[in-house]
């Protein structure tokens, strides 16, 4: 009987050794992960106060202490570049991504494909501390003037602040509801209802994104979906990006 069980014991031993190796890998990273979690929490607290300060004063402080912000972490540095720009750096000990094996497995079985990478939302004019980061220094340069010129009356915006951290093409932004979409015509077109019904051409390299900034395909944009259209230049009728807010 012992002989019959030997092959099963060997198989279980292999899985057991794999488990032990995983425990070693996890424990070896525990201290660095704790450091990074503390650093992230501190950075988030500082970011909230810094954003509050820049919104109130419309200028950046000379240092964090000038803005009455405590920085107990040596892993976080703040450098004033100009009156409207500053550099915020966080040094992490480990790499962290938004990878979720459970989501990957579910996505593979339910939607038939693996999700494409997304490193987190960042902004050029507002300090957001991304959850995903690389090992080492992670710097962001924040430019308050990116949203509107300081000390001037803000004018109605023709571009959206929100574009998934990507360079804005510079055109108008419209929020609308999809009436129909023709992906197979050349050029592809989208018809939307927005104070009437309008049809727009889609740029040949049109970017399609979900509201969480995950890349999507044109075929996933359906009639009735709420979309944000971003045009390639002011007063243009060519759509450079479609953000589907119904996902």
């Amino acid at each position: 009987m012992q002989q019959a069980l030997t092959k099963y014991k060997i198989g279980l031993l292999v899985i057991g050794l794999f488990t032990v190796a995983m425990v070693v890998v996890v424990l070896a990273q525990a201290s660095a992960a704790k450091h990074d979690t503390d650093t992230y929490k501190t950075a988030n607290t500082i970011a909230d106060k810094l954003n509050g300060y820049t919104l109130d004063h419309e200028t950046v402080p000379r240092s964090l202490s000038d803005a009455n912000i405590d920085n107990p972490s040596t892993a976080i540095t703040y450098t004033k570049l100009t009156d409207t720009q500053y550099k915020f750096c966080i040094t992490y000990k480990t790499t962290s991504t938004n990878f979720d094996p459970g989501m990957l497995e579910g996505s593979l079985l339910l939607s038939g494909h693996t999700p494409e990478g997304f490193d987190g939302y960042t902004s050029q004019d507002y300090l957001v501390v991304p959850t995903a980061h690389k090992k080492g220094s992670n710097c962001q340069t924040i430019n308050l003037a990116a949203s509107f010129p300081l000390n001037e009356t803000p004018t109605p915006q023709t571009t959206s602040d929100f574009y998934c951290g990507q360079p804005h093409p510079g055109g108008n932004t419209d929020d609308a509801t999809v009436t129909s979409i023709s992906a197979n015509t050349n050029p592809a077109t989208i018809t939307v209802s927005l104070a009437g019904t309008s049809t727009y051409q889609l740029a040949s390299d049109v970017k399609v994104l979900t509201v969480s900034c995950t890349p999507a395909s044109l075929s996933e944009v359906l009639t009735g979906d709420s979309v944000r259209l971003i045009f390639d230049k002011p007063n243009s009728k060519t759509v450079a990006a479609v953000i589907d807010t119904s996902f």
Partner: protein
Amino acid sequence: MPNPMPVVKVLSPIGLEYAFMTISLFAAAGALTAALLSLVNGEFSFAVLSFPTALLVVSVPVFAYLFLRTKRLELTQPHLRLDPSKRRSTQFTQIVCFLVSFFTLVAFVFSVFGKLGGQFHTSIGKTALDCLVLLVVFGGILAYYWRDEHQR
């Protein structure tokens, strides 16, 4: 006189052990799949690996103990292999593993079509590796129980 009908359905003693083993088997399989998928995708971070590892640490010893115990009982008492409540657990396991393997293959073929049609931008090699992990784990469980059920 009406036929007597059972009013309470209970598992046999070995059937209950098989139910516990099935729970720990799926926990271990899920954890192993998650750990392997993370490694295949180059993800070694604490945040990603800590939960699958915790699940492995608990489920693998529990599964190993129950598996060897029930196997030993089956070898000494062959009639236990045909115990109805034991077979209910093993057949449920086979159905779940078949569904996972089946839809993994569908997903792979769909990914190939999507890649050819330019709909997806993820690497087909990476998708193939992800699918292979699921097939090795769940297909392996299905193959084991299939052979176990069909051998004399």
